[in-house]
């Protein structure tokens, strides 16, 4: 670590005011604080600084995403060889998965970070670390067969329209990663719906059905995977969202480090079960007949619950607000899934929708708190 630190200190003067590369100070700063904890000292007001700054928070999320990513890489390979009917070793599956998934991750990071660095340089503010997570989330919520240029366009759109127009990380109304997916979903629908969930060329996959469990239910044909398969994740789907087990591991990391909100996760699950249960009682079609817990392990429900709904920026901030926010996400997701056959996956739309409502929920929660306290005040007899 020492030589690296010396190197950073050595080139630092060139980037500071008056140096040769003054313009790129923000770029330099981003790398410096990435490598070392910044030595800033608070000069006024409270003198306590948490070592858990934004950069380290984001790193925790990345660690929490690792199980889903690693499982996703293997699953892409596994699904490909299963679909083509070729016997393959574990290592072959992982290699094929890597070939498919790594470029998507790289493209997502390069295009998003390029925009972040450009805006930081123009506006002369710190490079926002927020994209470290978004750049990893975007590849995990799209199918492995998505063309790379689409990934790039969607990422650029999400970073500019979702984040930079509002003022950068921490100011965004919507979750940028979900916005990228929504962009792809509406802009290039044929690449995000139907039988696109298994990577590979068309000739290889001729005659193989690659529909997800949700698509099977929505269209009404094809074979439903078993609950165990859906729980383990050995089913076709977006790269990171298939395995509920891997996502649960991530959830444990998020909750243990205090990064993700347990309240939101639990209330989303409760909302999904509630709505699933109600629709199950009515049960007028095949989709309504499935047991409520199926909703939790199908599609992007688990992934959205753990990584998307808990996004600290776009979620509700107040304690009670988090319960309402989460519950409504769960309810809406199942409602969209079951009632609207045009959108087999409701998680994305439900979270984006509730992102917009989160400030409103917070507002009313705070107002009701104030009202309650005012009432309590009135009850206390005024002392002379």
């Amino acid at each position: 670590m020492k030589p690296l630190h010396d190197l950073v200190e050595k080139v630092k003067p060139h980037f500071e005011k008056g140096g040769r590369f003054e313009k790129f100070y923000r770029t330099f700063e981003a790398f410096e604080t990435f490598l070392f904890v910044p030595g800033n000292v608070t000069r006024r007001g409270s003198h306590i600084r948490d070592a858990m700054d934004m950069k380290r928070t984001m790193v925790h999320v990345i660690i929490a995403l690792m199980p889903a990513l690693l499982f996703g890489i293997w699953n892409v390979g596994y699904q490909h060889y299963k679909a083509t009917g070729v016997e393959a070793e574990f290592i072959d599956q992982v290699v094929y998965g890597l070939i498919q998934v790594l470029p998507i991750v790289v493209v997502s990071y390069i295009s998003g970070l390029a925009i972040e660095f450009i805006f930081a340089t123009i506006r002369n503010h710190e490079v926002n670390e927020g994209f470290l997570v978004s750049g990893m989330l975007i590849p995990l919520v799209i199918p492995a067969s998505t063309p790379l240029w689409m990934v790039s366009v969607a990422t650029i759109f999400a970073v500019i329209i979702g984040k930079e127009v509002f003022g950068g990380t921490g100011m965004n109304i919507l979750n940028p990663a979900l916005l990228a997916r929504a962009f792809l979903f509406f802009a290039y629908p044929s690449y995000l719906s139907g039988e696109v969930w298994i990577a590979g060329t068309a000739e290889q996959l001729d005659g193989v059905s690659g529909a997800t469990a949700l698509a099977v239910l929505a269209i009404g044909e094809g074979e439903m995977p078993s609950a165990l398969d859906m729980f383990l994740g050995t089913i076709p789907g977006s790269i990171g969202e298939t395995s509920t087990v891997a996502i649960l591991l991530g959830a444990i990391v998020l909750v243990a480090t205090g990064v993700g909100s347990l309240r939101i996760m639990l209330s989303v699950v409760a909302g999904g079960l509630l709505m699933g249960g109600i629709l199950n009682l009515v049960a007028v079609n095949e989709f309504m007949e499935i047991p409520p817990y199926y909703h939790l392990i199908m599609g992007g429900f688990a992934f959205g619950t753990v990584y998307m709904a808990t996004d600290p920026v776009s979620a509700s901030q107040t304690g009670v607000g988090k319960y309402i926010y989460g519950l409504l996400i769960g309810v809406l997701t199942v409602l969209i899934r079951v009632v609207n056959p045009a959108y087999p996956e409701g998680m994305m739309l439900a979270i984006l929708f509730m992102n917009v409502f989160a400030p409103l929920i917070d507002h009313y929660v705070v107002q009701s708190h104030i009202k309650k306290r005012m009432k309590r005040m009135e009850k206390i007899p005024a002392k002379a």
Partner: protein
Amino acid sequence: MSENNSMPKENLLSPRNRKLLTDPLGKDNPINVQVLGICSVLAITVQLRTSLVMAISVVAVMGFANVIISLLRHTIPPRIRIIVQLTVIASLVILVDQILKAFVYDISRQLSVFVGLIITNCIIMGRLEAFALNNKVWPSFLDGIGNAAGYGWVLLAVGFFRELFGSGTLMGYSVIPQFMYDIGYEDNGLMILPPMALITVGIIIWVQRYKDRRLIDIS
């Protein structure tokens, strides 16, 4: 704005009159700055051709409406002025509608109800009420043309981007070469949906305010 009788002979294109024409194009744009007439921007900018026809129609209606109201400004009783304005606009819109039906029937069908809805375009009523009722004929005419043109260029800009990226065509001719599609390019389906018109207008506003910082505090 009040009538100025002290200058009976003003140059037809004096600086003051020129401002009437050019302000609405930039710093007083009805869409970008005043945020009026947004509904029609969302509805008819899927293609450049419909945007163009709509822009021309609005220029015609607005120019004539401002002239007519300005001519009538001393005879209109203030209590019924809105009705009179509506009657004038409606007659002009019917005229435009008939002309479109006669000469460019297919475009008229694409624009469908939106030609009729020019009547409700808040920009036209706004300019009649705020300007033509109190000003002479020539400045009113310039004001009408200027505002309609300001509306028109935004319409054309949005239509240009939406048709180019949404359908890969311009004025109905395909401009994105076939080899682009062969190597995997796809038209952007989101561009055809109304939200993208809103986002495109938003980006135009963003760029405009970035260039002209004085606009930032206006709204």
